[in-house]
């Protein structure tokens, strides 16, 4: 059952020499319900706050793209490139804040849940601005809801501008809408991408109880979801398909398109038993084991249904179930978990990340993640990162973890802990004898620390 060290390793961001582990399951749940202290301490701006900067950059970008005169174009290019650099550095800074929350936050489980749900609702940009916005999307649409109702997170994620761009919803338009009729020569129409992923990935799951007709009808209902650079998300009735749509046998909407009809279908999809099963299975695989105990999945699914998709209740069920604490089968940490928990064990200080040149964040943290196989904010597709341990521990990806563990702690901190003490700091009282031996037999501190971080005991959770 509950064990403070196991709780931090499996459900949190790992052990820290500075921060006491959680005391009990009720303590873990209370922290999740409590104020978001990590976000306050390591802040990331809202889309609202970032907008002026984004607009300024967009002006530089447009000037570069649309200038024809060669001399002016060269100038515009220079300004655009300087602007791109500022944007990139901005993104590295926010990445630094995100990793510091893992290293120094009091509520590791919140950070892990945020990563889990951000992956569930993967949305990524394809240009400089939308790529920069990715971390803001997670901050705004995902983070506030990780311990709330799933339906609320669903609504926030599906209507966020980044999701609308990523899954082409902003291009989708009702074939019989006023906007389509006004300019028939443009032959604009429906795009089913978001509707399909919404059923397949976000709610019911692959092989769930829906048909191509449900996808089509949902795509029609979702028309009208849009955003503008000035206002963010907007619902545009003129682009929406008029008339009612039938999804999973229920009728939504009428002659006057309304956002409330879209919210209604999202509520119903969130409450669907297939959604409960799909989400709970994913949670159990992510947090407990690639092959979770079916009894655990059943209990969590029942709680999801009984509470109308209250995620906090679902976590409570998981944390109170004995199968969640079986430490014989352990998942491999994903690269971001590996890096975050390493920095936590190393007791990194905010200045090691905040007060260095952005290029250092790139070299020490962002690029190594790519080499470990998890390029930041660039999951391979809308289905996010793989869960299977074997996908992460290939020779090439493991080599990048090992090289990082041996080199980067020293380059970040300069002063490293005694490897013999670090074993206990990083692994707790379960530290295997072989790792204790390796840490004491290493040629120097960097390698000793590196060997502890490289050990499967540390790389599993």
């Amino acid at each position, binding site marked *: 059952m509950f064990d403070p060290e196991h709780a931090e390793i499996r459900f949190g961001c790992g052990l820290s020499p500075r921060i006491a582990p959680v005391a009990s399951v009720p303590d873990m749940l209370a922290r999740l319900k409590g104020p978001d202290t990590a976000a306050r301490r390591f802040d990331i701006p809202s889309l609202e706050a970032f907008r002026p900067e984004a607009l300024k950059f967009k002006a530089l970008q447009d000037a570069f793209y649309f200038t024809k005169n060669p001399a002016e174009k060269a100038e515009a290019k220079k300004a655009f490139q300087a602007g791109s650099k500022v944007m990139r550095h901005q993104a590295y800074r926010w990445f630094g804040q995100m990793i510091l929350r893992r290293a120094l936050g009091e509520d590791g489980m919140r950070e892990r849940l945020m990563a889990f749900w951000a992956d569930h609702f993967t949305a990524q940009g394809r240009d400089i601005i939308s790529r920069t916005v990715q971390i803001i999307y997670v901050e705004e649409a995902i983070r506030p809801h990780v311990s709330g109702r799933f339906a609320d997170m669903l609504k926030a994620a599906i209507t966020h501008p980044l999701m609308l761009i990523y899954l082409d919803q902003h291009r989708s338009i009702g074939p019989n809408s006023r906007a389509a009729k006004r300019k028939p020569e443009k032959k604009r129409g429906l795009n089913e991408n978001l509707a399909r992923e919404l059923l397949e990935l976000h709610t019911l799951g692959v092989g769930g109880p829906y048909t191509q007709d449900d996808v089509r009808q949902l795509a029609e209902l979702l028309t009208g979801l849009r955003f503008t650079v000035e206002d963010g998300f907007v619902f545009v009735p003129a682009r929406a398909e008029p008339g009612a749509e039938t999804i999973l046998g229920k009728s939504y909407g009428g002659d006057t398109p309304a956002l409330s009809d879209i919210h209604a279908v999202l509520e119903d999809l969130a409450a669907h038993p297939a959604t409960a099963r799909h989400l709970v299975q994913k949670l159990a695989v992510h947090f407990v084991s690639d092959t979770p105990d079916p009894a655990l999945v059943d209990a969590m699914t029942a709680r999801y249904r009984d509470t109308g998709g209250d995620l906090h209740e679902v976590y409570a069920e998981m944390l109170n179930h004995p199968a969640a604490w079986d430490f014989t089968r352990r998942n491999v940490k994903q690269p971001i978990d590996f890096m975050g928990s390493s920095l936590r064990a190393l007791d990194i200080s905010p200045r090691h990340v905040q007060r260095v040149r952005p290029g250092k964040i790139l070299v020490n943290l962002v690029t190594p993640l790519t080499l470990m196989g998890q390029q930041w904010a660039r999951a391979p597709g809308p289905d996010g990162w793989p869960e299977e341990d074997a996908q992460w521990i290939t020779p090439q990806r493991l080599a990048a973890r090992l*090289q990082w563990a041996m*080199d980067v702690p020293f380059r970040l901190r300069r002063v490293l802990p005694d490897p013999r003490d670090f074993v206990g700091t990083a692994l707790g009282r379960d530290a295997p004898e072989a790792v204790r031996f*390796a840490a004491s*037999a*290493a040629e*120097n501190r960097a390698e000793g620390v590196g060997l502890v971080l490289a050990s499967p005991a540390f790389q599993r959770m």
Partner: protein
Amino acid sequence: MKSRSRRNFLSNGLALGCSLAASPLFTPMTFASAPWENRLVVIILRGGMDGLDVVRPVGAPEFADLRAHALDDGGHDLDGFFALHPALGGLMPLWQEGDLGFVHAVSTPYRDKRSHFDGQDILEAGSGEASAGRIRDGWLNRLLQNVPGAHAETAYAIGRADMLLTRGAARIADWSPDAALSLSPQAERLLETVMHDDPLFRDAVTEALTLSAADVAEANGQDESDDGDTMGGMQNMMQKARSGARPETIASFAAKRLRGDTRIAAFSLNGFDTHARQRAGLPRALDQLQKAILTLKQELGPVWGKTAVVAMTEFGRTARVNGSGGTDHGTAGAMVLAGGAVRGGRVVSDWPGLDEAALYNRRDLLPTRDLRAHTGWMLRGLFGVEAQLLESTVFPGLDLGGNPGLIL
């Protein structure tokens, strides 16, 4: 010395008598007979290679208008109608020997939107446009999923790029020569100790160290000094990763695997998105391709005779040159074929012509055939893959059509 330290590691491993025996690289399973004798190398050319500039239809009356510069920069005549870009001149001996060929005026089913991301996804997924983004594994992986006797070493994905082509349920080995670990001998020995009881980690680290040792010895010819200094290892790894492993290094690694148990190797080359000053940019990209092919030929030795190399790209480029001396995203393009198993010395094409009415949307070379059909026929010719499997699973929805006879 680096290589010696790795040999130490390996012999220590053997002395311990457990880890190496358990590694997939060293188990008898791995040396079980491979499902095929022939070899295939798939090269993804990223950015949209301009087929009209690489394999130039100089015999077409409209070509001079569209591409004036391409008539006087030293291209090599191929068959009287087509000429080869001068930057691939080093491959002409292969053409004369029948070890080099081309397929022209082909494309994936992707049309009109001309995005690199979607175009590459469709190329690597091997899917039709209707299923764009729906298929989440690559055609090479789906092929492997359906081959009895295929094992982890049968196919190798080489390089840092995460390729959709090889992603999926079948285990495909991956390695990038620039991923080579640089650790002190003592650290290597101790790694063995800490990994010992976890098969997943133990096997991966053993392979990583073995591959690193081989890379260092082969790629460098001589060893750098390695006095237990690991401080620069990650930096080296990242610097190399940023610039990307050189095509010769990647091809050399591929050849080494293909001389052994590996039957399929895949990697990608960048730099074909030539929107401006194509005369300067395209030769750089083609030089990489040429080096990769020549390295493969040289290092495969006798295995070259059983090998087919196919290089393909997400789309071709516009027929006309744009205002910046480049070309923009288009539709049909060319495939490059090489190897002793290829029936070369030909440009295979149902040539659509270049007059404006013959162009796709009056701007791009018109695709006259799906490049998946050529790829499918290659898989059939090399490995005897059933047509039904190709049309239903590897390239779902494809009509293979007639055999273009690309494989000897």
